[in-house]
């Protein structure tokens, strides 16, 4: 393992410290926590708070999305481990303006339980809390017998939509309705070229041969649906768009927001090459995205690949 770190145990606390000191105009760390709230208190006045968070290793998620029109606060857990309820609760308390707080949770058993406990704690304090659990990863077959689909890069769209609505004064109930409307419309699929290495573990979460790729991998190196030999970008686009099409039936009469999300070790150059093929492929379906985002939004430490 070759990383720019000190003791692996201190990666999260040192990262959070570096982040808030680099951007004090945007982020303020709550004492004794790894929760970060918006420095611009005035922008939150009278609005419903939006709080998200999760394990670390997905930067810029989630603290990078704290700001006017997106999150009010973000809570960073240990690497790939949900933050604890006391810290989530501290964030809820810090951003509540008396109109309640809305939580954006990714669908992992740990995250769901820790955010739920924080919600219980806040309700004891008479802070109204509602939440949405994002489960956009279509690689996982939805079934009654598993945790269900994972929350991945599409969560960033949920942050944006709810953050913008909250900024315009939406109530907690209105945000809940909006979140439920948006949820089934966010779909994501991945391809990985190499796995992520968790600092405390010291070796990659799975092994792929030099010429091998895996479709459907999750953001914590969860297994995907198929491995095969590496292919040109055009063929990757066909596979991934094909999967999405099966799920949502792409339709030129609808409008789409499209995100090409790098997993941490994929250069922007490759992301734009993929984007070129993606837009060509969508054009054959007469689809011109209403909004495009290309870059690293929800990473998986040093995984190479796209979501």
């Amino acid at each position, binding site marked *: 393992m070759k990383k720019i770190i000190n003791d692996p145990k201190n990666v999260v606390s040192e990262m959070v410290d570096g982040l808030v000191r680099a951007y004090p105009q945007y982020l303020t760390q709550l004492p004794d926590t790894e929760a970060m709230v918006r420095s611009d208190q005035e922008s939150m006045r009278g609005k419903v708070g939006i709080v998200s968070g999760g394990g670390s290793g997905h930067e810029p998620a989630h603290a990078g999305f704290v700001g006017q029109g997106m999150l009010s606060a973000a809570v960073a857990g240990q690497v790939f481990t949900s933050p604890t309820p006391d810290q989530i609760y501290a964030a809820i308390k810090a951003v509540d303006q008396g109109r309640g707080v809305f939580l954006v949770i990714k669908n992992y058993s740990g995250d769901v339980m820790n955010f739920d*406990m924080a919600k219980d704690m806040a309700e004891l304090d008479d802070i109204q809390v509602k939440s949405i659990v994002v489960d956009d990863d279509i690689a996982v077959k939805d079934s009654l017998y598993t945790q269900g689909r994972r929350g991945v890069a599409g969560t960033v769209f949920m942050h944006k939509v709810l953050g913008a609505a909250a900024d315009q004064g939406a109530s907690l109930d209105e945000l809940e309705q909006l979140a439920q409307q948006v949820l089934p419309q966010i779909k994501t699929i991945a391809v990985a070229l190499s796995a992520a290495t968790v600092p405390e573990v010291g070796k990659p979460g799975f092994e792929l041969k030099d010429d091998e790729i895996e479709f459907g991998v999750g953001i914590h190196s969860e*297994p995907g649906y198929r491995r095969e030999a590496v292919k040109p970008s055009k063929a990757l686009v066909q596979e991934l768009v094909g999967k999405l099409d099966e799920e949502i039936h792409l339709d030129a009469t609808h409008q789409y927001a499209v995100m090409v999300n790098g997993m941490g070790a994929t250069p922007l150059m490759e992301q734009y090459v993929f984007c070129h093929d993606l837009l060509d492929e969508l054009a054959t379906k007469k689809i011109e995205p209403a909004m495009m985002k290309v870059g690293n939004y929800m990473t998986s430490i040093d995984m190479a690949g796209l979501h």
Partner: protein
Amino acid sequence: MLTVENTVAWIDQFADQIEAKQSYLSELDTPIGDADHGGNMVRGLVAVKAALNPAPADLTKVFQATAMALISKVGGASGPLYGTAFLEMAKQSKTDTDLETLLAAALAGIEKRGGATTGDKTLIDVWAPVVSAVQAGKLTQAVVDDAVASTEPMVAKKGRASYLGERSVGHLDPGAVSSGYLFTALLATEGIL
């Protein structure tokens, strides 16, 4: 009957077992999880031991201090599950010091928090048979060991292992193993059963 003294002794023994088995628990968590169960549990139980020394004034406070330390230090799924178990025992202990009633409340809390049930390859597969055995006055080490072993052939239906489906067969559930240590410590503590 549970007292402050024997309950603190029980939880201390549990902490010692977890510390001794840290790397084994993480190894179990590698093929079907994310290799952090040992580290997460040790971090929590080190905090629990500190919170119980000196011993709190009453039984409710013992359980409450244990729950808060686990909730704030463990993280992942184990923190809320073990934390909820001890929090429910804290609530129940206000009116009751009877082990079987407290454990039943803890189990109900775990089921509600995690939404899992018997056969899902989780710690419930140890808690449920142990609670029944305690209620019947028949808890032995064999009951605990059999319950832990029963998770090996199961297909995981909850938590991170559930993504593996059939590939989770043949591995013990790490949470079931750590729960096994909790009840092994219970059996080893004098004056409770």
